[in-house]
């Protein structure tokens, strides 16, 4: 008992040390990279190098969900987890080929800037602001919650205090440094989070398969000399316990297709990702940094499915049909947090982990797969602490990126462009800082009081981005005749159809009970409906456009101009 106690304290100390060092680093960077102009605040001065922007984009993109939850989700979903893997990476191909270079050439500060100017109307701008706020607020609430959860699990402060500590940190560098501060802290946060994710993965891969590269390890043979492939073993174990074979999955093909598409398109339409490409110097840098960002993201995303397989196999072998009294220390520890729970239904003292809910005795939260993985694999204490620092880096970097979008939407798109165009540069900078403060407070509020529909939130954010921005931007670049009537009608129809479908089939607010899966349109789940809403947007936009007049000559000239990469330097100095 005594040695256990020492081990537990050591993890705590390590966590304080590592979290403390990383926080000090973020604050130091924030002080060093203060924003002095609106251009600094919105687009980091417009001179970020492709590598720095790639790293910042990767950290911006990979949220608490990617770091903490994704491997766990995959380990319970098996093959079906591919919707997240492909969905959250494939969008970068669309970004690099269809959006980033042109938006960079356009060279303004925000996505509503583009929509408002390209569709020569403040109505379009305001619709875009509403979309940007809806998407970013739904997303940021989850991040602040993530910060709170990491704090509570590793540092034994309660979730709400964790949220508040996180608020102050983000407030400090987002308000002081704007995009400039955020960019360079995100570079540091990428390094922290990727290191924290890879170290345990490599350790476990060596333990289980003898291969130090997790991406190869999970397709290899077990290290126990049995000559069995790890995946075959997991397929067998899953079948024995009544689950679907791990490599087969259980969702319908059309639903897997639709969800993957909705997530890819949504990724390419998320304003906090798009704005990152406004920060580089030239059009060619925008393309290159999209490639670098994806490379850095894929490093984690190809490791996650390996971690999923290691963790699931490890967990089943440790608990399945074993006496409860023989459970290792981590089991008890995570039981107290409620992430894992055991109910001895048949009173045989052993743990039955089964697909059949009636006889299953073990409930496991998916987050445990990453959070407890190092303990399950008996890794050293500093590795366990590293996971906490990594989770915080992932959550904070994404939260900061989203807060910036929110503050720019208010101070730039609403105040400067619509309400009070005469505002001075200095006044706008003050407004930007104040709206960042406001946004942090609102995000913190939702982190402490998460709305009841948290489960729907991520799917909703992606669905909305896919259904609103993506078609409007693509048509704006590739279809010169697209006009404001078409674009506004398309965005409105896209968002409303997405919201209604989500409310009916995910939240069940229209009926007394949540409608059954069999009632889904074409068998497509609410998570995948963004793909349909996006198509509706395209159809409505093009139809309405056909019956209304072409955009003015100046706007058509803008389109001609953004298609050519040279001269992007001047565009930013508007």
């Amino acid at each position: 008992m005594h040695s256990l106690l020492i081990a537990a304290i050591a993890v705590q100390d390590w966590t304080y040390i590592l979290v403390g060092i990383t926080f000090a680093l973020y604050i130091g960077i924030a002080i060093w990279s203060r924003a002095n102009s609106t251009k600094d605040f919105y687009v980091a001065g417009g001179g970020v190098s492709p590598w720095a922007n790639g790293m910042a984009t990767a950290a911006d993109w990979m949220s608490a969900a990617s770091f903490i939850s994704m491997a766990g989700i995959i380990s319970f979903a098996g093959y079906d987890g591919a919707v997240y893997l492909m969905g959250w990476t494939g969008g970068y191909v669309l970004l690099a080929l269809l959006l980033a270079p042109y938006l960079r050439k356009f060279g303004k500060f925000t996505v509503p800037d583009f929509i408002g100017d390209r569709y020569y109307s403040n109505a379009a701008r305001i619709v875009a602001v509403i979309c940007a706020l809806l998407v970013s607020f739904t997303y940021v609430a989850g991040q602040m919650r993530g910060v709170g959860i990491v704090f509570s699990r590793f540092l034994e402060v309660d979730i709400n205090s964790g949220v508040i500590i996180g608020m102050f940190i983000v407030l400090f560098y987002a308000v002081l440094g704007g995009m400039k501060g955020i960019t360079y802290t995100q570079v540091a946060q990428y390094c922290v989070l990727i290191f924290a994710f890879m170290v345990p993965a490599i350790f476990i891969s060596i333990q289980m398969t003898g291969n130090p590269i997790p991406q190869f390890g999970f397709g290899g043979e077990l290290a126990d000399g049995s000559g069995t492939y790890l995946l075959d073993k997991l397929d067998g174990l899953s079948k024995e316990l009544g689950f679907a074979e791990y490599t087969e999955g259980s969702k319908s093909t059309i639903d897997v297709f639709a969800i993957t598409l909705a997530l890819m398109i949504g990724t390419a339409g998320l304003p906090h990702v798009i704005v990152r490409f406004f920060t580089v110097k030239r059009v060619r840098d925008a393309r290159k940094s999209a490639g670098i960002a994806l490379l850095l993201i894929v490093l984690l995303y190809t490791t996650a499915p390996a971690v999923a397989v290691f963790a699931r196999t490890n967990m089943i072998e440790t608990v399945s049909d074993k006496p409860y009294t023989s459970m290792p220390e981590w089991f008890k520890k995570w039981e107290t947090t409620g992430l894992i729970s055991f109910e001895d239904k048949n009173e045989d003292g052993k743990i039955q982990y089964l697909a059949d809910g009636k006889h299953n005795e073990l409930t496991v939260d998916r987050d445990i797969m990453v959070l407890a993985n190092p303990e399950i694999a008996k890794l050293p204490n500093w590795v366990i602490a590293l996971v906490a620092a990594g989770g915080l880096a992932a959550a904070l970097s994404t939260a900061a990126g989203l807060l910036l979008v929110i503050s720019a939407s208010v101070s730039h798109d609403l105040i400067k462009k619509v309400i009070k165009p005469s505002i001075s540069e200095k006044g706008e900078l003050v407004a930007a800082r104040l709206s960042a403060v406001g946004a942090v407070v609102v995000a913190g509020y939702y982190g402490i009081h998460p709305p009841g529909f948290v489960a729907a939130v991520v799917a909703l954010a992606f669905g909305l981005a896919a259904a609103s921005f993506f078609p409007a931007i693509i048509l704006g670049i590739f279809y010169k005749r697209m006009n404001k009537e078409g674009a506004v009608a398309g965005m409105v129809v896209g968002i409303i159809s997405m919201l209604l479908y989500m409310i009916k089939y995910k939240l069940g607010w229209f009926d007394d009970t949540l409608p059954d899966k069999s009632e889904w349109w074409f068998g497509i789940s609410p998570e995948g409906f963004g793909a349909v809403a996006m198509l509706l947007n395209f159809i409505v936009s093009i139809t309405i456009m056909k019956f209304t007049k072409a955009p003015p000559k100046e706007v058509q000239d803008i389109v001609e101009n953004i298609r050519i990469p040279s001269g992007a330097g001047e565009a930013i100095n508007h």
Partner: protein
Amino acid sequence: MTKENKARAYWKENIKYVLILLAIWFLVSYGAGILFKDELNTIKIAGFKLGFWFAQQGAMYVFVILIFVYVRLMNKLDKKYGYDA
């Protein structure tokens, strides 16, 4: 070549690249990883069933390669048309 013609020719070549690369993007993810995964799963490389591998690994590697190929192609194209200044 007039300025307009030059811009039009550049745009046409760009669109050609984009369409070819997006076709590959579609084939590796929606094709190999989703629509034809059951057929591909009959082929096994080490412990990986091929359809499963494309869905959880291969498609992502190809995505990265596609972007860098596009970067190279476009840098060359920019140079050819004198848009690299």
